């Protein structure tokens, strides 16, 4: 298998603080890999080591066959980086900015094509300072694409986006994948990882606690379905299917056989002529798995 990124035993400490405890990961060519984790879990530290911004304390890291800590031009020419924060010259236009960054690379992509790809064609001759936050973020991506990289790092690319801007950004990333790019994505949005990633890894306190495709991460596909229902007030008590009551008058039960359990609940309601106030059948989402894995905590940054 062609590994674009290969990480073995990666550690990073700042004094006594262990930002990355020990990580083993690999990313295949053409895949979208998402690193999930709460703030302060080590996502950005790990990503910045791969990007060549930080030296590592221990372990082996290979990006496109290079050691990123050496800062070689040969590697930088093949990689595009979208950082968390933008830093752009406010007085240049979109086109000039993409042109300028494209000029840093030996094989740059045509500027108009890049601008089209991120959906900024109508803003091509607008100055950067006139762009909205979401448009500037798209320009960030355009800059990262200007050198036609094989590998793209996207560090929380949609933080601060409204829902429709986020949808657009996702479509854009899908476009990149169709161009054969490999994408390393960090995010704390589960829907983003679910939609975009071929494979995800969850990092918590500097360690990878789970890794796999989003649909089957940490045995998600084998997890039990949860059914929630709330009979109207005055309804006769339901038979015991193993459900537990909640303060709001609803009941929850977990089941391996969702079809049968849902039938039990609805046929009981129909038999008694009851219309349920609430009925919910839910597969465990990526978020459920994630919260379980990370203990639902947000660490300090």
């Amino acid at each position, binding site marked *: 298998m062609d590994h674009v990124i290969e990480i073995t035993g990666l550690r990073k400490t700042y004094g006594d603080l262990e930002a990355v405890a020990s990580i083993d990961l690999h990313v295949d060519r053409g895949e979208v890999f998402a690193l999930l984790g709460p703030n302060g879990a080590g996502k950005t530290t790990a990503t910045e080591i791969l990007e060549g*911004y930080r030296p590592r304390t221990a372990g082996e890291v290979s990006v496109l066959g290079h050691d990123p800590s050496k800062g070689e031009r040969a590697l*930088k020419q093949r990689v595009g980086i979208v950082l968390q924060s933008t*830093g752009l010259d406010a*007085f*240049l236009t979109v086109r000039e900015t993409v042109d300028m960054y494209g000029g840093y690379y030996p094989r740059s992509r045509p500027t108009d094509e890049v601008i089209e790809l991120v959906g900024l064609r109508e803003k091509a001759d607008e100055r950067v300072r006139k762009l909205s936050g979401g448009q500037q973020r798209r320009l960030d991506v355009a800059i990262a694409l200007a*050198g036609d990289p094989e590998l793209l790092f996207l560090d929380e690319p949609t933080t601060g986006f409204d829902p429709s801007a986020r949808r657009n950004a996702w479509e854009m990333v899908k476009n990149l994948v169709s161009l054969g790019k490999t994408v390393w994505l960090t995010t704390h949005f589960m829907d983003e990882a679910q939609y975009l990633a071929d494979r995800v890894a969850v990092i918590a306190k500097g360690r990878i606690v789970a890794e796999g495709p989003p649909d089957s991460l940490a045995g998600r596909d084998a997890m039990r379905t949860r059914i929630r229902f709330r009979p109207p007030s005055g309804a006769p008590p339901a038979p015991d299917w193993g459900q537990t009551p909640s303060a709001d008058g609803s009941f929850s039960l977990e089941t391996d056989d969702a079809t049968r359990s849902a039938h039990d609940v609805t046929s009981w309601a129909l038999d008694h002529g009851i219309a349920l106030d609430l009925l919910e059948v839910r597969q465990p989402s990526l978020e459920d798995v994630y919260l379980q894995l990370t203990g639902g905590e947000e660490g300090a940054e």
Partner: protein
Amino acid sequence: MSQVLAQIRYTNKAFWRNPASAFFTFLFPLLFLVIFTTLVGNNDVPLGTEVIKSSTYYVFSMAAFGLISACYTNIAIGVVFAREEGVLKRIRGTPMPAGAYLTARVVHAALVGFLLVAITVVFGVIAYHASVPDGAHLGQFILTLLVGAGCFAAIGLAVSGIVPNADAGPPIVNVIIFPLLFLSGVFIAVGNDSPAWVVWVGRIFPVKHLVDAMRDSYLGLPFHWSDLAVLALWAVVGVFIASRTFRWEPSR
């Protein structure tokens, strides 16, 4: 090399598109030239054995002030801002060599400085009938500008490394340069009977050497190559400190 030229073009474009910044960069020395000449009156200023008009005195000292503002102040504050806004970090993630990027910034700053000097000199000629250097003196004047630009740009880079954040930029940058400008006679001529420590500040630090070299070449007085040597030495010191303190990212 072509990367440096391309970068200078973009830097230049962005510079002129910020009219407020460009306008005041150029207005400042001219404003001071008019203010000082008006306040002091266009009197005689004794310079050793020579006596010159104060308007002429302020033409070359404000030209020096302009060069220092463009190279030292603008580089130091500009690099701190670029660092705080993440521009430097972004550049570092690309194949653009750091040296080429910084060279482009320095060359652009120097070009702005030279333009400022030219404008100040032309303004002095038109408004105050100040003299203009010619022949060998003009050559010395231009050489002084080149060495001076390199020296103050290097010090600007060095200072940008010790400024902790963008808010601290302007105060630190100004607190370093303004006392030196005053003690080196840029704004008010330093008399022959100044205290010894003032004389020593002038001898040690580069500002007075720049002003003296610009004055001597501008007025056609005997040129002291030692002035340029001191400027070159400070350029080396500046580059050395900058190479030790330069940071790509804001400190956290």
